[in-house]
């Protein structure tokens, strides 16, 4: 049995959700008709000049901070020169030499622990146009062209696809928590290219293969597993693993080599002469960051959640925040069933959960009523079901389903029960206090359960002068 070294690295491209594009004031909106959000600047008309979007720079700095990166005092842009129809200027304005953030890390939750994986750099750049292929023709939609893009690069430090997936999920979650991107993978807002080299243990040969076209976690995992297998077999058969870019075929479940370039692309980077170097604003560095997933994770664990439960809850920044607020008033044990089972069974896409049909205060009221016994458990479940499926506010349902009797009504019924059960009252007065539960039961049944048994008990005790 030969032993292998597997080294995987990733390059991630994240579309930032700023209002306008990176270097012009066109709207960022990919749902518009093609070529609606364009101007002379983002279509590369002669004579135009770029003006950086400050919000995008701020986002890049905030992401760098959240990823524990070093941030230089001054930043500048560079040009990456190459020809492609989706690149209107013939160069992409990007960062080269100096990045917004470098030597950062991403905390990855593994069991109850948090492990840090390194980030090499965070670069801010501009998105290209979208190519649309119809009947062998290429059409270009420049709505996408010039959208701010973050390029996040890791060194090749991952040795298993699984750990890489955990890393990517953590990173993606962090970006969502920061509010800088929705990171919708299908929409291309969070794109991953992997690079992988498999070598016999001890060998230093670098046969890096890049895999592109990965738009889901399963594609990333399956393509890497396929590649590891393919490269191991090749090595065992003494075949050469070519340094190349391969595409993942989702249907055939295999990678295949992209058409080979006859030459190595030389991007002829040089500092962008249209944009002088600029200072990183202090406010970007000092502004308080939103709370990040690992904070919520730790808090949930502290409150008694296990790591699996905590991980489910933090998949949605909304739910994490909601849950922590609830946990200020109730113990995790008391609410976990309601949140994790009762509510979440009606949520299809937890990651994009941004609201519930009821407010935090309504939910607290609901839990209080449950605790008081005013809402029987099965009614509670019914309330959540209706609320979640029909998007009805929980407090309306409580009123509907649980009509709480007023104290005077309870009073009246208690007196009735006392009158009707003189013999039981006698026994209680004689010292058999436990018989009081019979009176409570009678009262509750007369009230059809719509009262708080604790209150009923108190009223009976008062009437009978017990205690």
């Amino acid at each position, binding site marked *: 049995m030969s032993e292998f070294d597997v080294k995987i690295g990733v390059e991630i491209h994240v579309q930032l959700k700023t209002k306008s594009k990176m270097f012009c004031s066109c709207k960022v909106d990919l749902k518009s008709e093609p070529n609606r959000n364009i101007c002379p600047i983002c279509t590369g008309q002669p*004579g135009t000049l770029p003006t950086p979007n400050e919000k995008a720079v701020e986002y890049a700095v905030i992401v760098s901070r959240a990823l524990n990166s070093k941030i230089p005092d001054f930043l500048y842009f560079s040009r990456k020169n190459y*020809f492609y*129809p989706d690149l209107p200027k013939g160069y992409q304005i990007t960062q080269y030499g100096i990045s917004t953030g470098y030597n950062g890390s991403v905390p990855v939750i593994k069991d109850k622990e948090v492990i840090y994986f390194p980030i090499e750099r965070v670069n801010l750049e501009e998105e290209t146009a979208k190519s649309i292929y119809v009947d062998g023709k290429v059409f270009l939609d420049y709505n996408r062209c010039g959208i701010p893009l973050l390029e996040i690069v890791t060194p090749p430090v991952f040795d298993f696809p699984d750990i890489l997936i955990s890393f990517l999920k953590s990173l993606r979650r962090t970006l969502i928590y920061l509010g800088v991107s929705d990171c919708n993978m299908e929409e291309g807002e969070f794109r991953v290219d992997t690079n992988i080299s498999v070598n016999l243990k001890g060998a230093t040969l670098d046969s890096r293969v890049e895999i592109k076209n990965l738009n889901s976690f399963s594609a990333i995992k399956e393509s890497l597993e396929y590649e590891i297998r393919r490269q191991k077999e090749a090595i065992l058969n003494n075949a050469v693993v070519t340094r190349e870019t391969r595409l993942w075929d989702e249907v055939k479940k295999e990678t295949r080599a992209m058409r080979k370039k006859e030459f190595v692309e030389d991007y002829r980077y040089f500092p962008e002469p*249209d*944009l002088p170097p600029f200072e990183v604003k202090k406010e970007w560095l000092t502004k308080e960051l939103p709370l990040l997933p690992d904070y919520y994770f730790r808090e949930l664990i502290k409150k008694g959640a296990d790591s699996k439960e905590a991980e489910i809850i933090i998949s949605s920044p909304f739910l994490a925040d909601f849950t922590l607020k609830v946990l200020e008033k109730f113990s995790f044990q008391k609410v976990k069933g309601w949140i994790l089972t009762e509510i979440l069974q009606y949520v299809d896409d937890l990651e994009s959960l941004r609201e519930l049909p009821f407010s935090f205060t309504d939910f607290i009221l609901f839990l209080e009523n449950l605790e008081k016994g005013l809402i029987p458990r099965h009614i509670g479940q019914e309330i959540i079901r209706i609320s979640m499926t029909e998007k009805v506010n929980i407090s309306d349902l409580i009123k509907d389903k649980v009509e709480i009797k007023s104290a005077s009504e309870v009073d009246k019924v208690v007196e009735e029960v006392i009158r009707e059960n003189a013999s039981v009252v006698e026994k209680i007065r004689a010292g058999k206090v436990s018989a009081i539960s019979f009176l409570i039961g009678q009262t509750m049944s007369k009230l059809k359960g719509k009262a708080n048994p604790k209150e009923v008990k108190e009223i009976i005790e008062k009437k009978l002068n017990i205690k």
Partner: protein
Amino acid sequence: MSWVKKIISSYKEGEKLPSEALVDFFKRAKENKFNSFITLNDRVFDEAEILDRKVKEGKIEGKLFGIPVSVKDNILVKNLRVTCASKILENYIAPYDATVIERIKKEGALIIGKTNLDEFAMGSSNEYSYFGPAYNPYDTERVPGGSSGGSAISVANSEAVLSLGSDTGGSVRLPASFCNVYGLKPTYGAVSRYGLIAFASSLDQIGPFSKYIEDLEIIFDVIKGKDERDNTSVKYPDLKVEIKYPLKIGVLKDSFSDKVEDEIKEKLDEFILVLEKEGIAKFSEFEMESFEYAIAVYYIVACAEASSNLARYDGVRYGFKKGGESLLSMYEETRTLGFGEEVKRRILTGTFVLKSGYYEEYYLKAQKARTKILKEFMKNFEKFDLLLSPVSPTLPFKIGEKINDPVTMYLSDIFTVPVNLAGLPAIAFPYSFSKNNLPIGFQFIGKFFDEYLFFSILKKIENLFNLG
């Protein structure tokens, strides 16, 4: 004297209407005797009529009210085609106004047309134009200088009162000098480049031409100043120019080297003597160690930036397009047939110096040399108020004389390029004529934002010599 003020006062006095004043200018522009125009503005008379009405209403407002201005054809004027004198942009209609155009239009300027240039402003003779060479009005067998040849001619031949050109390595000053007019290369960042088709972004600067120094000041007042759309533009400082005569002026030692034609040296000597005698200035020579490297440094930086700036002309979105059986063939054919030889030479040079492995050796080194050149200039400004040199080492040369020898052609800019590399302002002014009646001009080089110092001293000199 100011031609601009004279014209505006003729409107105020009711002697003429803008559309009437325009007639003669337009006639000469249309005649295009020296091939100075590529495109005329067919709508300029409609625009003039709007001003006519304003005159009749007594609303004569704007520093350039009813003044015919020509614009180099690498600056965008909305709805007019902008060719850069290149086949690749032969039919490209400008979708917006350059910032300088917005500014002069706001002051009432009448844009008469777009002037000839070397393709993409790359050249010193205006011979590299897809629309044919322009001719020197003083001798049509000779070049008008480049690259803004058409702009200089249009002013010299009264086809326009003022013109806007661009100066990357001398492209305003050289033709100004060859055509006997004033030409200003402003401090880098003083004038917005938005809407100027880029040749070399870190060197390009829009500059005006005029027959009289006062008019140059009037148009500079209008076009200067920070523009939010150009991040390299700066707020022009509010400086009060207080000049103590005699000024201390340094004369570049190389002005008298054997590379400079004798007639130019003789006139320079004469100029210096008169100014000293009149108490306007005191002169002494200065040397610049980096002077001899300036041309090499310039061609590395300018070509590198050009190779990137011109990448957008690929046939995909606009402009000339050819081929297309494959993506590569479209790029190759479009760019091979769309660009002229000199442009391709510079794109290739620029691509080479940016190649990985060569970048440090060429581009980075050139950038370091730029810093050194600026430092040397600034050191001299500790001793001098202004620096003086010829604009060109030669008199206007014959058409075809240098076209097959690019290196000799490049040397025409030996006195002008160091200024662009340093980002300093410089002004070419007409002084005299050779025995063959060819114009001889000189240039002042100033510290950053010394434009108003130029205007002051040159008003004095203009009066003294009756120039312009």
